[in-house]
């Protein structure tokens, strides 16, 4: 049984996706934020930018490390979480909620390449 939300899909690089119609909320998982430690900076692209599955769309920086964020879908960014500019710690505190990063208007969901909660759990356990 997975400890990760069942209604989300995941990447093996530790992003999560929540589909609502043709829109997708995207963030990083509780495992990822825990491995990174205290997050102090989240660099996100501008609204309107097109992103392609697998591309780097931003970076997340913790005290000890910096990580690229990989796009888990293809589409256009329609919103970014502005609150993270002043409060990046929200990613640590609530990674699946207030710590969301971007909303994408999806043109390709790439669902076959995304992982279910249980499959993602296995990646983490590896």
């Amino acid at each position: 049984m997975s400890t990760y939300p069942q209604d989300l899909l995941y990447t093996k690089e530790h992003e999560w996706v929540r589909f609502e119609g043709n829109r997708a909320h995207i963030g990083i998982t509780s495992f990822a934020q825990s491995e990174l430690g205290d997050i102090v900076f989240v660099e996100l692209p501008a609204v309107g930018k097109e992103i392609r599955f697998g591309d780097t769309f931003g970076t997340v920086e913790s005290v000890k490390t910096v990580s690229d964020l990989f796009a888990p879908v293809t589409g256009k960014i329609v919103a970014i979480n502005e609150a993270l500019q002043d409060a990046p710690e929200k990613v640590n505190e609530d990674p699946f909620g207030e710590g969301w990063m971007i909303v994408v208007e999806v043109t390709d969901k790439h669902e076959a390449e995304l992982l279910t909660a249980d499959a993602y759990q296995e990646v983490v356990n590896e």
Partner: protein
Amino acid sequence: MDATLESVTSVTTHGENDTRARIITSRFVELSGKWTGEMPKIRYLFFDVRNKKEKVRLVSELLRTPLFAMYEKYGAKVVDFAGFAMPVQFAGIIKEHLAVRTQVGLFDVSHMGEILVEGDHACEEVDFLVTNDVTRLHPGQILYSPMCYEHGGTVDDVLVYCLAKERYIIVVNASNHDKDLAWITKHVNKSKVTDQTDQVALLALQGPKSIAVLSKVTNEDIAAIPYYQFKENITVCGVKTIVSRTGYTGEDGYELYVDAQDAITLFEGLLEAGKEEGIILAGLGARDTLRLEARLPLYGHELTEDLSPLEAGLAMFVKLDQHDFMGKTVLAAQKEQGVKKALVGLELASRSIARAGMNVLVDGQVIGFVSSGTFSPTLEKSIALAFVDPAYRTVGQQLHIEVRGNQVPATVVKTPFYRRKKENQ
């Protein structure tokens, strides 16, 4: 995500009985090449989640301090640091950092090495090895010193404890232990050299409330020990220790040397005694952010085989006029001619972190490189130390740091970034 981690390798332990560990991601920064007057070349080695299988180093393969069992008990994230399984954090780097600034934190730094030099000529032989003046030390006193090569580059930076005029302990960085032991053994010919690293554990109790905590578990008047002095054979938590008024955090505090077999008793005793003061366990992550705010150098970053203590701004620990020592000729010439690069403090305009090895630019030209950078939990700003062309060392100088292709504005600021208030001293 493709994470990179400087200097330390992230390893995660899985459960009580499973010491299987996994390198999530890591990046080592190495300075290579001989000193030529140019910026040292920097080599990055990237590991990441996708090739972890080739790079895995198990916790069971790493060296352990006598306090290893405490990491699991108190929920540390363990990393490979200089070949030791060490806690990078317990509750979180920022939380631990702020606790040390305002209350008290306890660190296991038993990975540090202790090398005993003894004999009738110990004073002169140790004195020749280091740039600071050991001859002025009386028993009970400590000094900080770089230890240099003939060419002026740095072997290590060490603490020298004077037990007696014929007995000194040199405390060395874990990452340099083997190299230092070989170096000391080679250059100390008339005295006896004994490596005590495996027999000695080292705990650091740091923060404004460390006096209050330590006073509860000893009858000795530890408040009376002056800064950079120590006392031997002090009973703390029922075990015999060396109590040293030193640290690497920029706060008041103590370092306690203890027999390896007594380490857990001391560790648990201090933790229990400090409950009222809000004692917190702190890892190497907080140790690094604390030392950086206090502008304390870290070997491999501000000091290397290619960087001299004069370039690192440590002239006050290089006693050119007082004594003869290894590297003196080159360092004297460097002082005479002026250093070709200078270590400065930087404050970034963005929260983006300047990592070691990143270029420093003025008008698009590379004029230096970052040696250490972090997010300062005290100032809530991104700060860095960088080696720059001395023409750009003035406080207020505007420059840029090249962060993953972007030029982030930064300003040269006064260091240390943080200095503790007088009433705490």
